[in-house]
């Protein structure tokens, strides 16, 4: 397992090199090499792990030097945050950062623990590594082309592409470290790095809005970090261990609840959702990275790790209620958005809500569903963000209204979007199956509230995806030409993503048997068949029908003789389907808008009550947990 340090070190190395490369060409080559290296290293680790049996493995017991380095790193991070917060006059943020670092240092001084393994490789960690490595590397490749077009478009922002790419790589290193750490202190260190790096990425453009949003992201994540630090203190003091696994086995309610709080902030659950929504100001690759494979997934990763300890406890109820509520509230708010990236952001939060709810229930089936949801969501969402980003670079807008009839203007990107959207909610793609299993598990757990959340939430989810898809495939000829300036490396990344989505669906049984079930087995020590063979057969029938029926119908109808006539506009069609004669006898352009139901589902109406409700729920539950334990 000698690959491990390289896996973390390689992206950090690339991150250190990239900003100093002045030539654009050298930078691109470095990024390609870096991304390739990350994928190769992750692949090597995977092969090594599989060859040694695919079991749980632990490493690095004696790491005093690294521990000291990490402590120094934490101090550096703290200094950076304090400096920036003073610079931008956001003093409370500095306080949060200082507080948690102080708590951690005090803990290490006051409660020394027995040395134990610091890194742990098991199925879940491996899965997260592979997702982060592959999805993330493609995003980096995409970013090279994207940033060129971005700065071509936005001349008002300073070109700091080198810094941007460097941060993306740093993020990888932190993410790998996070998922491969079995020790809470190490995990905390990487956790803080992801918080700070995401803060730097969000503030990339340095506009007023960007700075505001980046600090919002920072304080929310630092709040979670504080919870993390306190959890370490409590477990070191009371349980004399800082191993995640042992904490979970001990099932002590307070550290679990505090860690869950950290997970909730990281995965942007209500009431902490606003940081992820604000993260939209950054260039698209960073949104893609934050939303799909890394940042938010770190939150749900932690929650999944905690899930055995949460099953049937107050903490579990808290997490599952918050998750279920986030699922429905955010899917409702997504309806009222016409900004493509906002819809994606809300859908991310809402889908994560479902995963979080599954983790909170903490049964084998729900973890099964959660892991699958995570896989499908990472790939589909990363692809959707990239496609929207490319469309934005071409049209100069990411408004869904402007995507009317995109099928005729940008066919390739529309197909990619179509696959992504279908992957997000249509039968029989993975998300839906996972939802099906989650529903069954919620029923078995006897949680009527979650069943209702899921039932209503999937209805609202369906609406916002359907109307977007409907907008894309309108056959509408506009006079405005769109020139596809998407670069080859961008297409390469998106194409590989779409192949991946389709393959994941086609190889679903394999994925289920070979990947997900072993993970559940490792977490719970037991796993029973979640999907029976008959269900899998049904699914295969569905999958084949969804792919082949339209294709077959295409062949059937291709030869049908049709007479093409203009669309019906009460007889006032000018003949080209885009203009009609108005009451002055003049041609008027046809404009078709989607439904947004702003007065019913608008963010302005729903956000505040949702925040109050979820914050209240969180505070009351935390008080109950702490009070119950003390």
């Amino acid at each position, binding site marked *: 397992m000698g690959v491990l340090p390289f896996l973390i070190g390689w992206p950090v190395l690339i991150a250190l090199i990239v900003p100093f490369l002045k030539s654009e060409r050298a930078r691109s080559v470095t990024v390609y090499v870096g991304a390739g290296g990350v994928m190769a290293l992750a692949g090597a680790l995977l092969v090594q792990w599989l060859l040694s049996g695919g079991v749980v493995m632990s490493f690095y017991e004696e790491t005093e030097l690294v521990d000291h380095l990490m402590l120094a790193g934490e101090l550096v991070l703290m200094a950076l945050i304090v400096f920036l917060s003073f610079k931008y006059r956001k003093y409370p943020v500095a306080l949060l950062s200082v507080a948690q670092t102080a708590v951690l240092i005090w803990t290490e001084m006051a409660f020394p623990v027995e040395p134990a393994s610091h890194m742990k490789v098991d199925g879940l960690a491996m899965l997260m590594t592979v997702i982060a490595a592959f999805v993330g590397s493609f995003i980096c490749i995409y970013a090279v082309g994207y940033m060129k077009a971005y700065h071509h478009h936005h001349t008002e922002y300073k070109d700091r592409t080198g810094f941007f790419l460097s941060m993306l790589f740093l993020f990888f290193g932190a993410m790998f470290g996070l998922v491969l750490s079995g020790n809470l202190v190490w995990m905390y260190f990487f956790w803080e790095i992801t918080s700070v790096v995401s803060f730097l990425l969000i503030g990339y453009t340095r506009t007023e809005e960007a700075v505001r949003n980046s600090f919002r992201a920072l304080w929310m994540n630092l709040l979670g970090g504080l919870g993390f630090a306190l959890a370490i203190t409590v477990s070191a003091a009371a349980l004399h261990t800082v191993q995640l696994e042992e904490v979970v086995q001990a099932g002590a309610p307070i550290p679990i609840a505090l860690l869950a709080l950290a997970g909730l902030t990281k995965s942007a659950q209500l009431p902490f959702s606003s940081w992820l929504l604000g993260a939209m100001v950054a260039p698209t690759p960073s949104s893609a990275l934050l939303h799909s494979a890394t940042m938010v997934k770190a939150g749900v990763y932690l929650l999944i790790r905690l899930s055995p300890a949460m099953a049937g406890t107050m903490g579990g109820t808290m997490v599952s209620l918050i998750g279920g509520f986030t699922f429905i509230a955010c899917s409702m708010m997504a309806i009222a958005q016409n900004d493509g990236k906002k819809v994606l952001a809300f859908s991310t939060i809402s889908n994560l809500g479902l995963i979080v709810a599954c983790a909170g229930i903490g049964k084998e089936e729900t973890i099964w569903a959660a892991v699958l949801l995570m896989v499908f969501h990472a790939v589909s969402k990363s692809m959707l963000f990239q496609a929207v980003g490319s469309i934005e670079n071409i049209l100069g807008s990411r408004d869904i209204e402007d995507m009317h009839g995109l099928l005729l203007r940008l066919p390739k990107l529309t197909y990619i979007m179509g696959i992504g959207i279908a992957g997000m909610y249509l039968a029989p793609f993975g998300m839906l199956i996972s939802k099906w299993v989650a529903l069954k598990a919620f029923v078995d757990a006897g949680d009527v509230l979650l069943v209702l959340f899921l039932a209503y939430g999937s209805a609202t989810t369906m609406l916002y995806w359907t109307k977007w898809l409907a907008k894309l495939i309108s056959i509408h000829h506009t006079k405005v030409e769109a020139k596809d300036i998407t670069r080859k490396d961008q297409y390469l990344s998106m194409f590989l993503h779409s192949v991946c989505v389709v393959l994941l669906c086609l190889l679903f049984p394999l994925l289920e048997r070979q990947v997900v079930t072993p993970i559940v087995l490792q977490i719970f020590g037991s796993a029973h068949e979640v999907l029976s063979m008959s269900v899998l057969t049904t699914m295969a029938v569905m999958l084949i029908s969804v792919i082949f029926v339209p294709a077959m119908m295409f062949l059937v109808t291709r030869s049908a003789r049709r007479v093409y006539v*203009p669309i019906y506009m009460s*007889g006032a069609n000018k003949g080209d389907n885009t203009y009609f004669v108005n009451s002055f*006898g003049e041609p008027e352009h046809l404009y078709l808008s989607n439904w947004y139901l702003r007065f019913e589902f608008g963010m302005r109406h729903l956000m505040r009550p949702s925040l109050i409700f979820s914050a209240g729920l969180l505070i009351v539950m935390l008080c109950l947990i702490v009070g119950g334990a003390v």
Partner: protein
Amino acid sequence: MGKLAKSPWLLHYDGSSCNGCDIEVLACLTPVYDIERFGIINTGDPFQADILLITGGINSQSESVVKQIYSQMPNPKVVVAVGICACTGGVFKTCYNIKGGVDTVIPVDVYVPGCAARPQAIIDGVVKALELLERKRADYAAQKKTAEGEGGTDSGTYQ
């Protein structure tokens, strides 16, 4: 009666009528006359209509509309002009804006005179149109057959 005659769906268009005939057309739908007995449905959509039923004369503004709606009705189809204005232009014939009856714009198959035309007369006219429709259907089928035999196609592109 054949297939079409058993299920004639009609589209009612008001050219520039005084609404007298329109009221009578609607009267046909009421329980007293109940044209649904014949399978007739008053659809609002040219794409699904077999009979175009026009009341009132055609003026310069409605001319293009009538032509377009007629072009959006799939074959076989018939046109029934209801009321004297639709037949010839009626008392408005010499008005500066009136072009005349419906037949000045599109071919008319059945003329139903009257001011306003009585429901009985309208139903009578529609039933007459059904016979014509059936004949046109036979013609259309034959035409389609020959066109297929010659490998011709009647499709075009529309954008």
